[in-house]
């Protein structure tokens, strides 16, 4: 297996507001290699965005943050970096696509020059080369008539076109890791399909690592090679997309997938619900985070934090943090 290009281990992130402290990420980690797409799946508040972007210093504004653990980009310790090195890394090594394109594009500036500036600063191109690069990035992102769009302001583009312009912006510095944070949530179905196809095409052509942060199981199914399922700041299950999505073991993953109907599958289960809501992360109990909503819970789940155990060998290990299901279903573990 190729060595990971972005790797996070044992990450703990506490967020402090004036009135509460919240453990947003609680001992979670992930890794992604060049040419690979990792999906980090979770619902609101599961910590998926904070876990991925937090080590890069991209955190919610107006809250104090306490961050522990290890994070390495291309083998270098990110958490020990100087602010200027980290800023360079964010702009060049990582490209980020956000849910709302207007959060990344300056509404007062034309689209093209914003891209050219990025290409000049991080890819070290001359002004003339950067302009050409910007036009070709727009073309590559599927924007028709890129010469014309170069001189347009963000408000002159439709939602789907803006999303493409932001992808072009994220690619301008020729990143080695592309992080897409809910890239299709705000888009219509037919435009979603276009954007997912575009991300996949870029990934194949450039062989970069892609991290998809999403709650949309459909998007995961289209793009991901591997999946990590996050619940209340911890990884509940991880493995290949096929293993996790078609043979889930953790009760949360099973519940999540059962709540998503599939009109193409013959054995469609319909919309089953997970009762209850995620725990209050300002007051976490010691045991399994999912215990209050879990139909497989036993008393020990309240006192013992489950650790990830490998349930299948192979190139992509399938790991699950639920000793109850593993024991009850006689699943063989490998570590």
């Amino acid at each position, binding site marked *: 297996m190729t060595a990971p290009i972005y790797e996070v281990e044992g990450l703990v992130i506490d967020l402090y507001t004036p009135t509460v402290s919240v453990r947003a990420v609680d001992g979670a980690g992930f890794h992604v290699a060049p040419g690979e797409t990792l999906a980090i799946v979770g*619902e*609101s508040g599961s910590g998926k965005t904070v876990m991925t972007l937090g080590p890069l210093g991209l955190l919610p504004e107006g809250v104090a943050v306490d961050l522990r653990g290890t994070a390495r980009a291309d083998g270098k310790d990110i958490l020990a970096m100087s602010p200027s090195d980290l800023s360079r890394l964010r702009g060049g090594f990582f490209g980020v696509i956000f849910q709302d394109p207007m959060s990344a594009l300056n509404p007062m500036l034309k689209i093209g020059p914003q891209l050219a500036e990025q290409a000049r600063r991080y890819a070290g191109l001359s002004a003339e080369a950067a302009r050409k690069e910007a036009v070709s990035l727009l073309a590559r992102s599927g924007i*028709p008539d890129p010469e014309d769009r170069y001189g347009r302001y963000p408000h002159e583009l*439709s*939602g*789907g*076109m803006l999303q493409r312009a932001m992808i072009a912006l994220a690619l301008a510095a020729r990143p080695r890791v592309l992080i897409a944070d809910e890239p299709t949530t705000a888009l*219509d*179905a*037919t*435009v*979603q*399909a*276009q954007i*997912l*196809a575009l991300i996949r095409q870029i990934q194949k052509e450039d062989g970069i690592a892609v991290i998809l942060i999403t*709650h*949309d*199981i*459909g*998007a*995961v*199914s*289209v793009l*991901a090679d591997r999946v990590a399922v996050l619940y209340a700041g911890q990884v509940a299950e991880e493995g290949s*997309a*096929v293993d996790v*999505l*078609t043979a889930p073991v953790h009760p949360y993953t099973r*519940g*999540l*997938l059962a*709540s*998503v*109907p*599939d*009109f*193409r*599958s013959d054995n469609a289960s*319909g*919309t*089953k*619900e*997970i*009762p209850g*809501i995620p725990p209050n992360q300002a007051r976490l109990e010691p045991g399994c985070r999912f215990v209050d909503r879990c139909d497989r819970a036993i008393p020990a789940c309240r006192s013992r934090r489950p650790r990830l155990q490998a349930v299948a060998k192979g190139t992509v290990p399938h790991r699950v943090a639920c000793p109850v299901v593993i024991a009850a279903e006689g699943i063989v573990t490998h570590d």
Partner: protein
Amino acid sequence: MTDRESRGGPAIQATGLKVHFQTAAGLVRAVDGVDLTVARGAFHGIVGESGCGKTTLARALIGLQSATAGQVNILGRDRAEWARADRKGFARAVQFIFQDPLGSMSRRQTVGQTLEEPLQIHGQGDRAARRGRVAELLDLVALPATVLDRLPRSLSGGQRQRVSIARALALSPQVLICDEPLSALDVSVRAQIVNLFARLQAQLGLTIVIVAHDLAIVREVCSAVTVMYLGRVAEEGAAKPLFDDPAHPYSQALLSAVPSPDPRIEAARPRILLEGDPPSPRNPPPGCRFSTRCPVVEPRCRETEPALRTVQHGGAAACHLADARDHAMI
């Protein structure tokens, strides 16, 4: 069709409905000539992409948005006349649920006050009877009595949507119109609310119209569906037959765009990718509105706008290439 659906004509009948907005940039034809029939006891989904007019249509059905032209009958009465002559009676019969429950509730009222208010306004029962009804409502939407004293902002998204559903049900309406009530919710909570709607519909014999963009959920729970494109109805019919064999090329593309949660199915199936975005409702193209993006477009499609006609699945589609025997496939 059940007894309930056949008795006394449709729950909602809209004819030639148009809603146009005058804006600085020109006339927006948000809804541009829609005929819609919702059977009594139906769970009717309205789907389509941003700008197709689905939300404006839902608002115009209940009169939250005044129509430029056309007529809406609800439960056999002219909606505009009914709302003028007997506003409270209309409100008791027809209720609306918004996408953002927080925006539709007073931030200073507790859940108990929010639920009791419609009963007070409509002079229903004494204090004790109203309290009893509030308890019933909480039960109906599966909320614990402990939420009664809480304020909307201290509730989770799913709980808030349950409160807004309970309030809409307070006066025992016959028709519920819901504008994207699921969009702001997380996946697992969305399933809870969908199942709640389905249960209420069966239990109370409600007619529910739901504007939604999660197509898989619409197929799962709705009995009928209307697919809109640029202010017009592209296709309509019973939900499962339409989803299984859509006759309109736009419906085909829309359904093809929904990924399967199974990566093995996803890797194997051919996908239809439409080019570009929908055109602006300020400037719909001549002829068929989908002609600018349609992969099987013919010259006549750019000239004549197709009328809705009966197609194979028993519903209707507005496509020159579709009739009762056959339809184009993209």
